[in-house]
């Protein structure tokens, strides 16, 4: 992913060439969808949130200065979109998680299970639902294609080293939950 060219495209969008946003959308639609999907495991909702991110990019395009990476700026917006959604739907959040857990035990889980063919992965999916949002977020960001620790640090407003520690702690928490669930199975 060429960041310079991302910035060049976004600067054109800023100058009124809105069609160039289509190119950025094509480059990042899957990555953004993956970011939201890993957080909520709801494909429909993730698609809506991706849509909101691009509409916000369009609305606040004047604020893009081009001095940082477009990807980092976009993920700042994506995080805000995600937070706004979860804040608005806080009451329903527990239901969603429950639904998600149910879903994991049902069709989707079985369908993916056929592809994944592994009990460990099977369990891992169930464990993820128990992880808090911050840990989930840093793990998801570290998983995304082309995302470096430095980029994540820029997105989360912390140093590269601090990101490594966050990922380390998130993985430890994941492992604890994993072991706990494994013992029960």
């Amino acid at each position, binding site marked *: 992913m060429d960041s310079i060219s991302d910035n060049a495209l976004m600067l054109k969008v800023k100058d*009124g060439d*809105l*069609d160039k*946003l*289509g190119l950025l*959308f094509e480059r990042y*639609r*899957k990555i953004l*969808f*993956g970011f939201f*999907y*890993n957080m909520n495991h709801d*494909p429909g909702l*993730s*698609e809506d949130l*991706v*849509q909101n991110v*691009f*509409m916000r990019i*369009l609305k606040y395009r004047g604020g893009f200065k081009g001095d940082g990476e477009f990807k980092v700026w976009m993920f700042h917006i994506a995080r805000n979109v995600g937070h706004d959604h979860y804040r608005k739907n806080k009451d329903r959040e527990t239901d969603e998680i429950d639904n998600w857990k149910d879903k994991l035990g049902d069709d989707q889980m079985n369908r*993916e299970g056929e*592809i*994944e063919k*592994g009990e*460990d*992965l099977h369990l*891992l*999916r169930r464990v*993820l639902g128990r992880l808090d949002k911050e840990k989930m977020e840093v*793990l998801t960001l*570290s*998983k995304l294609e082309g995302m470096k620790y430095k980029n994540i640090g820029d997105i989360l407003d912390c*140093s590269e*080293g*601090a990101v*490594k*520690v966050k*990922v*380390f702690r998130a*993985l*430890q928490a*994941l*492992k604890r939950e*994993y072991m706990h669930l494994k013992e029960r199975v």
Partner: protein
Amino acid sequence: MDTKDLINKYRSGQLSSDEEKMLDRCIETGEVSLEELDDLAALKNNFDAMPVPEPSQNMSDAFYANLEATKQKEQRPKAEGNWFSQLWVTQPFLRWAYSVALIIVGLGAGYWLKSGGEDSDKLENLSAEVSEMKEVMMLTLLDKESPSDRLKAVNLTSELPDASAKVTEALLQTLNQDENVNVRLATLEALYPYASHPQVREGLIKSIALQESPLVQMALAEMMVALQEKRSVQNLEKVLKKENTPPEVRERIEKSIEVLI
């Protein structure tokens, strides 16, 4: 403790809380990488390998529909602007209409400002004060010894919007008593605009008999004709009867009397 020992202790799950903090620091500084912690590395690999479905075509369709809608929304005001500027260029009368409208608005605003409000009252008070000052100055200058000062005083009356009785009285007195002929002639001229006032007219008629200067006598005779003042005939005849009246003046006065009668 060296990092290898630290990692080994971590693997065996025997880290003290101080050692845990140390491991945190080592990870932060990059001395220990996450890949070296096998269990977590494996977990991370599993997590990273978790498949994510493809977003549907609906997402792309909705995005491009929204983008198109935004483009149209932003272009509309521009198009309206272009339509107006085209009209502006192709219809010169619009420019004229605009100019005329601006003038009308300007005049209206001027009239409105002039006719009403506190400001106009203040302005009126101010100009009344200025007139009063000029009047005082004029009366003071009339008492000066220098004829040029007295001439200035007489000329000042032309700047007064409406002379008070005090001013006209002072002017009549100057006309009758001032020793300088030029000052008296200027005074006569200054009094002419106020000749419609009965008191001024009366004063002018009386002044005919009091004048010694032929120039002033002739000027007065002409003014009486201009004013069609028949009551002045008696006084003009008095001038004729005077022995020292020059023949030119006499002739002029006789003509004036003829016109007036």
